[in-house]
């Protein structure tokens, strides 16, 4: 039997431990290296896709990167989805196509998608709404219970698509209650749905249902339509030449001033619209005419500085200024009108803000080309109304109609 001194034993132990540590380290490296390398590769490929720009810039490199990225493991999906958070709209499509390609391939070969990771990503509202929605749609393919579990909690989600689904479920629930003659319960559910609804069709459906229960909705306030304006015009827009002409209201807002207009002197008038969707009909408010320009301005008092969207609907050419800064210009005539047709992004300052709109009518003769009007609302990126601090309560249409009928 050989005797080993404690010191020597300790040294040997240390030496063995060190060897074990090295061995463990090597083993770990062998196991982790491919994963780390893969993660690094995915990161590089995502970066290459995010580098695409206007007019085809970066396409050849992105094409190479896409080929490799589309071979990535399903486990890499959350990392690729996260790339969407700050991707430009073109890059977003490259990334989306890689996610779809990977997920489609995995399902086709009978493999499972990383449902837990996809769900975690879906619920993480710090990610871009579109990225979360994409994760959710593949999650639903992997877990048939996902929609029923998650959607009902998404009534106030930053993603409009999630909200829409949540509202749709409430509408079904309310309809069932209404059919069962549970009027109060149905109305309560419709009210809850209205709180989340941002899409026009859903809001209109809810308003109509609530009206059948004798309840009214302040539709202009729900959307954030601007109802009170000062208007001036018509200025000249013969041969559509007025778009770039700087008429006096673009330089100064003096409401007592009088300026030469197209067919005589023009001055500012006050105008309040009663339309539920904030329609300002310039043919009625000013003068029915063609080849003309009008300006509309209003003040907006913000409780705090915040980014907002000014969403305009009009069939006429238009420009929008916020506090003197031009934030939108669209020289398009009579090519359709839809809610939120033009979205201009700007930032409100705390206190008084000035919004100025220029609306131009051309000289088309067709009956369908005679509208000269606009609707403008103020909201955040989700379409949630942002209201001026001093906004008076608008009279809901149903109440106004009732009042009119009583008269």
């Amino acid at each position, binding site marked *: 039997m050989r005797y080993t001194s404690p010191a020597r034993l300790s040294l040997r132990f240390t030496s063995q431990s060190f060897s074990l540590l090295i061995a463990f380290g090597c083993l770990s490296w062998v196991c982790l290296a491919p994963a780390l390398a893969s993660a690094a590769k995915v990161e590089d490929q995502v970066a290459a896709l995010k580098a695409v720009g206007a007019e085809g810039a970066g396409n050849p490199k992105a094409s190479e990167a*896409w080929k490799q990225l589309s071979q990535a493991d399903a486990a890499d999906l959350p990392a690729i989805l996260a790339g969407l958070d700050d991707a430009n*709209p073109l890059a977003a499509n490259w990334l*989306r196509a890689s996610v779809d390609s990977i997920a*489609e391939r995995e399902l086709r070969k009978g493999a499972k998608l990383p449902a837990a990771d996809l769900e975690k990503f879906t619920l993480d509202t710090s990610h871009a709404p579109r990225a979360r929605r994409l994760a959710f749609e593949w999650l639903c393919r992997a877990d048939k219970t996902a929609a029923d579990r998650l959607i009902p909690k998404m009534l106030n989600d930053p993603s409009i698509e999630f909200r829409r689904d949540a509202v749709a479920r409430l509408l079904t629930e309310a309809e069932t209650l209404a059919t069962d003659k549970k009027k109060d319960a149905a109305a309560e559910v419709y009210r809850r749905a209205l709180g989340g609804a941002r899409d026009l069709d859903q809001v209109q459906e809810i308003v109509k249902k609530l009206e059948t229960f004798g309840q009214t909705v302040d539709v202009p306030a729900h959307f954030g339509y601007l109802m009170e304006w000062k208007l001036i015009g018509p200025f000249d827009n013969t041969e559509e030449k007025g778009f770039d002409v700087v008429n006096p209201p673009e330089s100064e807002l003096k409401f007592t001033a009088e300026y030469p207009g197209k067919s005589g002197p023009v001055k500012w008038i006050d105008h309040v619209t009663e339309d539920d969707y904030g329609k300002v009909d310039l043919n009625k408010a000013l003068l029915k005419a063609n080849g003309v320009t009008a300006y509309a301005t209003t003040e907006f008092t913000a409780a705090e500085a915040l980014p907002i969207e000014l969403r305009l609907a009009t069939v006429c050419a238009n420009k929008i200024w916020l506090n003197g800064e031009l934030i939108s210009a669209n020289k*398009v*005539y009579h*090519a*359709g009108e*839809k809610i939120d047709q033009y979205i201009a992004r700007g930032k409100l300052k705390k206190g008084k803000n000035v919004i100025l709109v220029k609306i131009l009518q051309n000289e088309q003769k067709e009956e369908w080309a005679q509208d000269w009007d606009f609707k403008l609302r103020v909201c955040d990126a989700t379409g949630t109304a942002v209201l001026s601090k001093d906004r008076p309560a608008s009279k809901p249409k149903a109440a106004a109609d009732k009042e009119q009928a009583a008269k």
Partner: protein
Amino acid sequence: MRQSLIRCVLLSAACVVLCGADWLHFRGSDNRSISTDSLPTAIAKDDSGTDRSVAWKTALPGRGVSSPIVVGGKAIVTSTSGYNQDRLHVVSIDTKTGETEWERQFWATGRTLCHPTSSVAAPSPSSDGKRIYAFFSSNDLACLDLEGNLLWYRGLTHDFPTAANDVGMSASPLAMGDTVIVQVENKGNSFAAGLDAKTGETRWKLPRKADMNWTSPAVLRGKTRAEDLVLLQSPDRLSAHNPKTGEQVWSYEVACSSISSPVAEGDKIYVPSAGVTALRYLPDAKVAEKLWSSNALSPSNVSPIIHQGRVYVLNGSGVLLCGDATTGDVKWKTRLKGPYWATPVIAGDHIYAFNQAGLVQVVKLGDTAGELVATGNFGDPIFGTPAVADGALYVRTDGQLWKIAAP
């Protein structure tokens, strides 16, 4: 060397045969809406509701009015979905089984407003046999290989923000050689462009009249493929260009339709202008001269078809007119049930006309009269011209793709 040459010739011949079986663009591989294939005449639902000659029908994601194309045993269809119709789909369907092989989805980077009768999926895809070019009303253009791998992506409204039309854009792209031609004519940034088929980078970009236009580029075949020209029809002219450089070879100034597209056969071009106007291209002089013009042959919304010395149009009243292609004289007319948006197809000696309501009317083309030999009902709106390939008809209704073939 000799063996290589023989191999090359055989390969080319095989390619011609294969490509001949494909239907690569809007209105077919030569944009002429004709096929030598013989098709069944009893198709879709008869009066008793029985499906006839339906090989399969496959549901499409979302809706659309674009035409299918057929390439390498795949039917490629585009559609759009979502509340704002801003989800763009490209679907590949196995022509043998009707199974969806792959689907790619993109987010529109341009405007998605359009008239209710149209769709963001209005332009038809195009292919050069190796790649697919899927274009949308939002001016998004995705290039994919036949397996659905993304090769490049362009957002032409993203690049040129005023290039848009809120009624909807519909000009289909045209792959010619190694260039993809797009016609983006509208009241904003109005242009035609040739993009490198491999990278999507812009080869040429020509300004066009700032006016709304929905016509598609068409091929004017030369003696060799290198001499092929692309025809661009605008409301004020028809011009012919070198597809690779965009160089204008000739231009014929005349008021043209902004909806139906030109068709060429040999050196003759039939332009939807004052009814139909026939031109002859003189390559040595690089000019086009007028042969005849016929107001009686008004093609309304569909494009004319030239077949065996005859010109066929469907007018606004739903009347099928047959004219002499050398004189423009009307030879016969047959009243059908309209209205029509889909350009009909001629296969064998029958013309297949699909009206807006989804009714197909099959007319046997005779020398002195057309005989309505069969009708069938698809029960779903049809706005896109069908494709004919490998003895089958591929009909795109709003929500489905149908394969019609003899059992």
